[in-house]
């Protein structure tokens, strides 16, 4: 007993001594754009982390870069998407980061806030060469911390057969037309469900935030959250109606979406470019047509993808940024598309015939010019989780939109924006 008490006393004393030295300093001055990098070819080792098997394809691009910059040695390490966020966070914590890494667009705010990312050098790149929405994913507190690499956006995948049977010949242009079309899919088109929207749950915000943006609203105005604004509540009502009127299922079993869509049981769904490949794998490449997002005050969709960032702990800052600059050239962006089927973030790359002449891809390219990303605040993932929860209640119960919006606003405000 006595030994235990002595142990605790010593422990307690050392802890309090340690903690006496703690305390956060007042927020430092905001960072400005990064210093320019030196001219001339890149040199030295450049370590790069890229996610997914695409990371491997990056080695091919790196070879071309090394031909142009013979004194540089690019080493690419592919890391799995599963766990990538944790790996980068831990690397920053331990000060053992690579020079360059691919970072998911929704992680930028959080990692920038750690102070672990290097601000983009002022004259490195012309920001107008990227899609607006894409560039905005790199801007945190007015400073850019990276460069968009590839993008994705969401469109409506509409079942051609169901649409024709329902007498719907052209894409819906606004909210009312969309609701009417979906209803027609069900009533005349023979589908069991006019549309399949995600009924809340992880990631449902990517379906609903676009509705908010289309309605002229947003989640955050730079100072505070605006979830309880009328634009948001209206968007919630619109979303909710699809479920309460029986147009979208609330409990579609996982994995059923594609088979049911192909079997004409589902009239439409919202997704990104990867679904083209998934449907092609199931021999359904001609089954669908792509609709632009409906217009209300705007016809905005969600933009995601990946940004390239350089770390503060990088040992070869110049070389790292030069490599990033190289990857942002339109020709290289097109090569990257050819290698990894990832849509280029640079607008000029879309003029290449490979992208311009495919009708499906052109549809994505078109939507990319009107696509937004969520606020690049450090706490977005946590706020989004509250939003997802609220959306689940909206979809699955008879909760009231104003009430739910109020709850989300309250929770978001208590979470704060992370500054």
């Amino acid at each position, binding site marked *: 007993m006595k030994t235990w008490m002595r142990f605790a006393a010593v422990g307690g004393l050392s802890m309090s001594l340690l903690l006496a030295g703690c305390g956060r300093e007042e927020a430092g001055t905001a960072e400005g754009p990064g210093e320019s990098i030196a001219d001339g070819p890149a040199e030295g080792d450049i370590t790069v982390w890229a996610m997914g098997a695409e990371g491997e394809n990056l080695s091919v691009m790196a070879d071309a870069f090394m031909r142009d910059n013979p004194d540089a040695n690019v080493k690419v390490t592919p890391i799995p998407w599963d766990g990538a966020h944790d790996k980068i966070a831990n690397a920053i*914590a331990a000060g053992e980061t690579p020079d360059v890494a691919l970072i998911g667009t929704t992680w930028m705010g*959080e990692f920038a806030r750690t102070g672990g990312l290097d601000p983009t050098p002022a004259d490195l790149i012309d920001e107008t060469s990227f899609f607006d929405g894409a560039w905005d994913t790199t801007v945190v507190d007015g400073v850019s911390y990276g460069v968009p690499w590839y993008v994705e956006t969401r469109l409506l995948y509409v079942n051609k057969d169901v649409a024709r049977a329902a007498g719907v010949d052209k894409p819906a242009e606004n909210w009312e037309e969309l609701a009417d079309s979906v209803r027609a899919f069900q009533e005349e088109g023979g589908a069991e469900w006019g549309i399949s929207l995600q009924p809340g*749950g*992880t990631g449902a915000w990517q379906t609903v935030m676009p509705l908010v943006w289309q309605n002229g609203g947003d989640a955050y105005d730079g100072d505070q959250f605006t979830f309880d604004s009328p634009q948001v509540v209206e968007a919630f009502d619109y979303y909710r109606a699809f479920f309460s009127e029986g147009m979208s299922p609330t409990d579609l079993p996982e994995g059923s979406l594609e088979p049911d869509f192909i079997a004409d049981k589902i009239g439409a769904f919202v997704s990104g470019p990867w679904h083209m490949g998934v449907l092609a794998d199931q021999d359904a490449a001609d089954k669908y047509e792509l609709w632009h997002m409906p217009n209300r005050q705007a016809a905005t969709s969600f933009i995601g993808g990946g940004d390239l960032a350089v770390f503060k702990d990088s040992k070869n800052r110049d070389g790292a940024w030069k490599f990033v600059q190289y990857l942002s050239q339109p020709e290289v962006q097109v090569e990257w598309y050819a290698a990894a089927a990832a849509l280029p973030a640079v607008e000029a790359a879309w003029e290449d015939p490979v992208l311009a002449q495919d009708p499906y891809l052109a549809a994505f390219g078109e939507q990319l010019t009107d696509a937004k990303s969520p606020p690049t605040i*450090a706490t977005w993932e946590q706020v989004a989780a509250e939003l997802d929860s609220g959306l689940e209640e909206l979809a699955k119960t008879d909760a009231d939109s104003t009430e739910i919006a109020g709850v989300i606003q309250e929770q978001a405000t208590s979470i704060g924006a992370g500054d």
Partner: protein
Amino acid sequence: MTTPSTVTGQTRQTSQRARRARAGWGFTSPFTALFLVFMAGPVLASLLMSFTDIGSADIRNPLGVNFVGFEQYGKLLEDARFLKAAGNTALFVVLGVPLTMLAGLLAALGLNSGLTKFRGLFRVGYYLPVVTSIVAISVVWRFLLQPETGLVNSVLGLLGIDGPHWLADTSLALPSLIAMATWRNLGFLMVIFLAGLQAIPQNLYEAARIDGAGWWQQFRYVTLPMLRPTMLFVAVISTIGYLQFFEEPFVMTQGGPLNSTVSISYHIYDQFGFGNYGYASAMSYVLFLGIVALSLLWFRLLSSRDDR
């Protein structure tokens, strides 16, 4: 040992005790050294974290955080999701632990004494769910529980019952996960019970049989008492494991529908993911207290006299 009356006898006894003590330290020191560095250190550090407001923005400068005392712990009581998770976790443990222990014990008994051939095959087979990837398990179980085409509802349909949508029903999702966890973990417990059963000396059974004991009496008066240390171990380990259940909701339901399957570990995982390291650590240590409390309860119930 008889107490010797001579002085040399006394010295021999003390030197024997000293020798045993030295051996004790010798045997435990390699373990203790590594343990202190890689286990105790991080545990202390994370405990400290729970008394601060450390977040992901501070990871490059961890000493620059504010000491906030028990504030993070207090926040838990106002966190609706945490309270729901605590309720779900409690239910999971209260139902799941006895169920899995019983299933594991029955399987071990069956394989130990009931089989004459193919024992190895059965042992491997029952253990297979433990080694099968959670991805494969989740795909199959999702199929089993599917509302229209799933196996469970098809069988129920044969009996004229209209099966519900198991994973989408807020009152049935958690029980479904309990069934899945029991299925998955009974092999693990079975293996430990088998080890314990093997250690019971055969002559005890022979003696019982000579005294006329039937199967049930042998079980009650030989097997169960001899299995006590094993049972205690199994009970504590299952409780520890089930209090931290994470993979089932993570893979099958993502905590839904409407938070009916979110567990404390799932909530901790989310909070670590959001970068709220201080809060997540506080939650972890509250969970730890829960684990300790339940384990002490088991020790009370199942500890044999020579334990402690």
